[in-house]
């Protein structure tokens, strides 16, 4: 009997111990600021270094400690944030991308940048506008990036070809760079790529009304009736018909870095890790994204992560201000390939010297500065699902589905997501 009682007591203690441990550890003197992030691999190391530097300097003086927690990919961070909403388990700050904007715009837990009172006058204008909704500036841009055309420069040079300017060019280039064992291009565009490939058409095109959902929730799908998605699909079918296109949706970077495909579209944020993985086997070239046609002059949409905050406190403000300070931005950019969001970062001598040495990093910056500032990310509900729907829809066309039918399918899917969301959240 006594043995059994003892076991019960031990069990009871063991259950409650972690309960208390979780609640009792907060020390009064230091304010802990938790940041959920999605920086992977080498980027994670740098991000943690940045947090550590803060803890050792400013944090030490002011009694603030950053705890950086990896939550998986950008979309996994949103999943965790949504799940934690209303449970008292939200982080102070979460690093998320445009796919989070719709949910965050409606979240009652979000603390906007305006409310925190952070000075954003040094932040890139396109960065600010990309996270501004009818409720104000939702999040503080932290890592800006632009979609780039990555290519195997060694191969291109040896064949005497230049990176393409349009998708028609790209078809010609692919015919030269593709072989039986090497795809000329790999990867299937999804929402992120399409905001540029559709957005740049006719100078400036939106996929959804209300400036892609930024000026109030989107109520109408535009990429169908304006014909922009159709134009893209027609050109992309030609890309597929070269026979040197590898329509894969995962592991694209691995294919590129191992030399099994000659080109891909990817965010500038991958630049450092791509160069790292190639480790000198060939020279990595980057260029602006090829445009759908000559009339597509809008340029590239700004993308990348922003810091959403859920706590209104001076400590959070201090941390956010640190994150966008020129030095941190320059360091982050050099290590990753992200474009600094602080315009002051461009003026630091260190960063100027860095760009001089690594001209590839300039392409993204120029690409953003040359773009129409009206271009904006798509804010659509069920973003994760819509992302995969675009890829499947494109695959359908490549497999022979009628383009008009595919377009109306895709319009119906996005309209369905919008209708379902507004029915449940108004």
């Amino acid at each position, binding site marked *: *009997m006594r*043995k*059994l009682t003892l*076991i*019960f007591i031990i*069990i009871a203690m*063991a*259950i*409650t111990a*972690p*309960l208390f441990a*979780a609640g009792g550890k907060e020390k009064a003197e230091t304010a802990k600021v938790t940041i*959920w992030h999605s920086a*992977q*691999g*080498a980027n*994670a*190391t740098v991000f943690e270094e940045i947090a550590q530097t803060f803890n050792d300097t400013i944090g030490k003086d002011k009694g603030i400690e950053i705890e950086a*927690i*990896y*939550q*998986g990919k950008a979309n996994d961070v949103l999943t*965790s944030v949504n*799940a*934690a909403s*209303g*449970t*008292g*388990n939200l*982080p102070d700050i979460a690093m998320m991308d445009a796919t989070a904007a719709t949910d965050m715009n409606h979240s009652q837990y979000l603390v906007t940048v305006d409310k925190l009172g952070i000075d954003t006058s040094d932040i890139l204008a396109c960065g600010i506008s990309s996270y501004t909704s009818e409720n104000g500036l939702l999040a503080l841009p932290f890592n800006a990036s632009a979609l780039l055309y990555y290519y195997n420069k060694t191969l291109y040079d040896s064949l005497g070809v230049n990176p393409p300017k349009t998708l028609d060019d790209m078809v010609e280039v692919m015919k030269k760079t593709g072989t039986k064992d090497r795809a000329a291009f790999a990867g299937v565009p999804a929402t992120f790529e399409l905001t540029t490939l559709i957005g740049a058409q006719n100078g400036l095109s939106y996929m959804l009304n209300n400036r892609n959902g930024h000026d109030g929730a989107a109520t109408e799908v535009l990429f169908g009736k304006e014909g922009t998605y159709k134009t893209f699909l027609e050109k992309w079918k030609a890309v597929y018909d070269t026979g040197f296109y590898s329509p894969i949706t995962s592991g694209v970077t691995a294919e590129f870095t*191992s030399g099994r495909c000659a080109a891909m579209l990817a965010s500038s944020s991958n630049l450092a*890790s791509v160069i*790292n*993985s190639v480790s000198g086997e060939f020279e990595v070239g980057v260029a602006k994204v090829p445009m759908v046609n000559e009339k597509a002059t809008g340029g590239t949409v700004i993308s990348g992560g922003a810091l959403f905050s859920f706590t209104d406190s001076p400590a959070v403000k201090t941390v956010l201000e640190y994150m966008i300070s020129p030095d941190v931005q320059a360091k982050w950019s050099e290590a990753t390939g992200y474009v600094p969001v602080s315009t002051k970062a461009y003026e630091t001598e260190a960063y100027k010297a860095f760009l001089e040495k690594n001209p590839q990093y300039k392409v993204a910056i120029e690409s953003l500065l040359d773009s129409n500032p009206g271009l904006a990310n798509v804010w659509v509900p069920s973003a994760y699902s819509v992302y995969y729907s675009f890829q499947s829809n494109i695959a359908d066309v490549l497999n022979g589905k009628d383009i008009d039918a595919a377009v109306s399918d895709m319009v119906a899917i996005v309209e369905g997501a919008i209708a379902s969301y507004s029915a449940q959240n108004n």
Partner: protein
Amino acid sequence: MRKRVQRRPFDTFKYILRKVILLLLAVIVAFPLLYMFSSSFFSPKDFNNLRLFTVTPRWSNYAKALGHGYFGSFIFNSIGTSVLAALIRTCVVVLAAFAFTHLRFKGKNLILGALVLTLFVPQEAILYQNYKTVATLGMLNTWAGIIATSLFSAAQMLLLMGSFVSHGMQAYDAARIDGASDIRYIWDVLLPLSGPAVLTVMIQTLITTFNNYLWPLLVTNRPRSRTIQVGITMLGFSESGETGAQMAALVMVTVPFLVIMALAKKRIETALISK
């Protein structure tokens, strides 16, 4: 076996065929495990070259995996939660099974029926509602939250009830006459008698809780509280090209269970083989 001398050529052929199929199947089943061991010593180049083994083992993969800031707490949380869940579930199930088989009370069949009803509800279908409950109770990021949904199993309760009934009531009546309490009887008589069944319950719970992926993924969002199954997918080694370290982590997670399995195999078989 003595008859083997008399085998006709066709029988010998069938015998060899069977052994070949057996060997092939064994190799296939063992292959991922073997590759895991072998590739835990690979350099990134070995992975690129699709090697199956390397002659220049990279022990640093293990150092790297162990050096990961949270690897220790992942393991600790996993072992802690699965042992705890196994103990508690066994207690809960033993008590209930005892009451249903040995005691008489009003509404017994109704309660039993209601409990058996839980067999019809897959955990996956009530994932979100359970998440909400655990969150409301403030059990996110705690061991209590991780094990909350695996503390009762109607299937195991039925298994134990079957075993308890099979021993008859004489021992219980004798114990009652001796004035022994029910708890005393369970501890001293029933549990030793139903050893294999109780052990099966414990091991089953231990393994399922340890292997759980989706639930711990949902109820933990701090690395310190994560279990190893969630943790190993978030080490970030693969993303930075350190697949070797990833494999080393997998090896360290798997080996203890291979040992437990090898030790427990005989007992599980005894429990399952009825003569």
